[in-house]
């Protein structure tokens, strides 16, 4: 009995030893995990954006307005403005979203819905935060994970799942925690840029009231409760 217990102990120690030995190797570097993720992000960004490109407005008054606000936030926070690929889309839906490889899409519906630049800056800072915190790829990879698990368990895969996956990206539906993280980060960016976060809170509050004049509220329908967000943004802004 004692011998068997000792053997069990040796066996467990050996397994732990093998694991410790193997974990000393930098597998992330060896398998180039980060480089592969970056390359994947770039390819996905190109693929997704290619499907939307036709509706894009790459110049004009609206583009210049959003561009100047994004540039101001980037400059104050030390981000490279060139890395953000800004696109304005002619769509009445109140929506803005980030795509892989730092594509930022803003609908004209959103630009028309805001009362001032502070409100618009709030939404832009929120989307920049999603990019800076790598939420886009996190969300995408998790969605891919779910799709993979479904295809393993059901034995089905293919176009339908991929289409659904890409649809998820424009829906701006992030996890509640990620949304809050992006909101808090956005407040930080706005403060550094000398913009009052209260504008962002006002806009969210108005969206929470579901103001009929705002039209289709895609941006808000996929986000956590707006009034609650407006409240913690005001609280954070006051600190």
């Amino acid at each position, binding site marked *: 009995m004692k011998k068997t217990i000792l053997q*069990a102990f040796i066996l467990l120690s050996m*397994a732990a030893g*093998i694991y410790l030995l193997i974990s000393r190797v930098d597998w992330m570097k060896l398998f180039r995990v980060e480089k592969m993720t970056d390359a994947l992000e770039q390819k996905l960004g190109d693929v997704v954006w290619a499907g939307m490109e036709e509706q894009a407005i790459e110049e004009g008054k609206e583009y210049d307005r959003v561009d100047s606000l994004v540039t101001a936030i980037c400059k104050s926070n030390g981000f490279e403005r060139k890395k953000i690929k800004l696109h304005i889309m002619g769509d009445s839906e109140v929506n803005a979203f980030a795509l892989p490889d730092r594509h930022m899409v803003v609908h004209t519906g959103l630009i028309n819905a805001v009362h001032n630049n502070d409100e618009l800056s709030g939404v832009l800072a929120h989307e920049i935060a999603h990019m800076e915190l790598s939420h886009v790829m*996190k969300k995408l990879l998790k969605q*891919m994970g779910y799709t*993979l698990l479904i295809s*393993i368990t059901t034995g089905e895969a293919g176009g339908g799942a991929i289409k659904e996956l890409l649809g998820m990206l424009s829906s701006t539906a992030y996890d509640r925690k*990620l949304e809050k993280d992006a909101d808090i980060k956005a407040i930080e960016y706005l403060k550094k840029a000398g913009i009052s976060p209260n504008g962002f809170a006002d806009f969210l509050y108005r969206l929470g009231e579901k103001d009929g004049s705002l039209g289709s509220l895609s941006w808000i329908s996929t986000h956590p409760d707006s009034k609650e967000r407006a409240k913690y943004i005001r609280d954070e802004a006051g600190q």
Partner: protein
Amino acid sequence: MAIDCTGIVKLVLEHLQGSIKMSSTFIYHPTESEAEKASNSYLMSLIAIMVGFPLPIINLMATLFFYIANRKSTYFVRWHCIQALLSQLSLFVINTIGFWWTVSVLVREDEHVSNPYLAYIITVFVVNIFELAITISAAIKTRKGQHVSWWFYGPLTQMMCKP
């Protein structure tokens, strides 16, 4: 400080070689039918790997059902069914951790591919390959009517299985 691993590696290799060491101390010589059944108990886990991948429970279930079906069989058959079952049980624990870690990497927002995760998956792979090799070896030897007692699992089986 440089550590001389040669002695440790040698010791480990000796243990590994010893783990599939054939024992000639079985109390009787099994018949052809017994040898076939005992060999099948090891083959069960191999077939289940192909069918059930990546779900780790499948091989355990296969060896468990095979043991239940043969629990009233002869001592030689029961002995090898239990040894196969015990080895699958420990493999199940290791593989289940790997499986759920992978699921959490795939679906959880706060879990990502990391060095400890990759190291664990590689360890699981190494352990499974080793297990596969000794299982094939045991299946071949028991088919020939030879008794195979694995290091640790053999004495444990001996305690659980009486003539």
